[in-house]
């Protein structure tokens, strides 16, 4: 479904991604694991078209997308739930959800999709008229995920969805992500919360200083000696 082939990405003169390649197959949950500054978010920002690779290519379906404008990628069925939630804090929950369904078919089915999101997060339905700036961190993450689903994506990318949440909420968020996959949406997830992420992932890639150093099934990665010492602290 998504193929990233040998991309190099720079911030100004500094190269942050070196020859990164990976793929996400349909209906998979794929995780990108790595420490702060490894380049995980940069990968997602490059896939969504906010940054451009200097070399290499990115295919979505079989179409090259690395030169497309971000809004065309939304049309193509890609959704990106950004790090730190990035809600429109001076808009209500409902307005934020509307912002996820601005284009084409998603706009026509806005009301219906909104009900699906409210089924997934009943708490948002109660707070639909509330400004997002007044919500708790967990609720904000729910809005961010809901907003990402409003475009009816084929592929949804999560950037650190558990960041700053209480452990019980983290568990809930991961349950929701599994549920989203069951609905037929492919998931690419970037996380520092290695253990929980690997437990729901089919496959994972380990990223260190802008290079992929390890790849394999979630289970395999979890039992890898290097990963154990570097990320799981066992």
């Amino acid at each position, binding site marked *: 479904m998504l193929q990233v082939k040998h991309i190099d990405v720079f911030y100004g003169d500094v190269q942050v991604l070196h020859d990164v390649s990976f793929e996400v197959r349909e209906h998979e949950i794929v995780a990108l694991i790595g420490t702060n500054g490894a380049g995980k978010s940069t990968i997602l920002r490059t896939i969504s078209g*906010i940054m451009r690779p200097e070399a290499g290519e990115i295919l979505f379906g079989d179409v090259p997308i690395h030169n497309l404008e971000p809004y065309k990628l939304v049309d193509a069925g890609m959704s990106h739930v950004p790090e730190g939630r990035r809600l429109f804090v001076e808009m209500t929950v409902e307005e934020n959800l509307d*912002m996820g369904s*601005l284009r084409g078919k998603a706009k026509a089915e806005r009301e219906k999709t909104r009900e699906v999101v409210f089924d997934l997060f009943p708490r948002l339905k109660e707070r639909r008229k509330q400004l997002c700036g007044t919500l708790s961190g967990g609720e904000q993450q729910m809005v961010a995920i809901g907003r990402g689903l409003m*475009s009816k994506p084929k592929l949804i990318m999560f950037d650190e969805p558990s960041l700053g949440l209480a452990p019980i909420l983290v568990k809930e968020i991961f349950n929701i992500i599994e549920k989203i996959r069951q609905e037929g949406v492919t998931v690419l997830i970037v996380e520092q919360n290695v253990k929980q992420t690997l437990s729901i992932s089919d496959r994972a890639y380990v990223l260190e200083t802008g290079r992929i150093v390890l790849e394999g099934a979630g289970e395999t990665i979890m039992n890898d000696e290097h990963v154990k010492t570097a990320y799981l602290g066992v």
Partner: protein
Amino acid sequence: MTSAQLEVLLQTLIAGVLLGGLYALIGVGMTLIMGVMKIINLAHGELMMVAMYIAYLLFSLFHLDPYLSVFIAAPLLFLLGMAIQKFLINPVLKVESILPENQVILTVGLGMVLANLATMIFTSDYLSTPVDYATKAWYLSDFWRSSPIELSLSYPWSVSFLIAVVITLCLGFFLTKTDLGKSIRATAQDSEAALLMGVNVDRMRVITFGLGSGLVGAAGCLLIPIYYLYPDLGGQFTLIAFVITILGGLGSTVGAIIGGIVLGVFESLTATYIGMGWAPVGRFVIFVAALIFLPGGIASLLQRKRFGR
């Protein structure tokens, strides 16, 4: 307070609110552009001057009432604003330069070009549109015979105010109820998140600059029946819009509307109680006071109320 003093005070407040309504319309245009682009458009007053010359031409050539010229001048200014953003500001945004805010410098230059073009075409004579209702007014005693005080309400000032209110309400509806309006607000709040939602951010910038220019263009048409016109009038209105934008809290439309009214009333009070010539001083006193005591502007007060902090 004697009834004569009360009369003066009330009359001053009425004049201030009417003036403030027009100021609000001028300020909202700059504020919208500020919110989305994060730059101050320092050609804002000059764009209004262009609209006023359009209204003047329509009046002197076709005897079109300045209030009706809103429907021609505002759309023309909308197109002009979009063209400025698309062909002048967007290319400058993409150039790396030593000045981080070179788009602002660009708008300064644009303002000079517009003012000088106007001087070349129309000379620097003072012009006006002598409409027959210019001095008409309603008097309180016409409606209430035994009224202890006498107040008057100027006809053109009131009509201008009402149209300004209607335009502002339409803008509010557009920004809160339509997808396009929400996309503009989303771009102002977090442009990268808006990009990820499928908003064509470059297009929003073009539309917003058009919208801000159209609004100030409408304000120009509302101002011309009660004001006179000359090529250099833009500068002072750019400053007024700037003060309102700061007072409102950089990018908050509601803040700018309140800021416009506050400024209008404050100027009116200064003009009555200190002296006509002191009104601009009042304007800058409130500007400096806002910077010192309310750096977040009126928006920060509103926010404290809405978010409970």
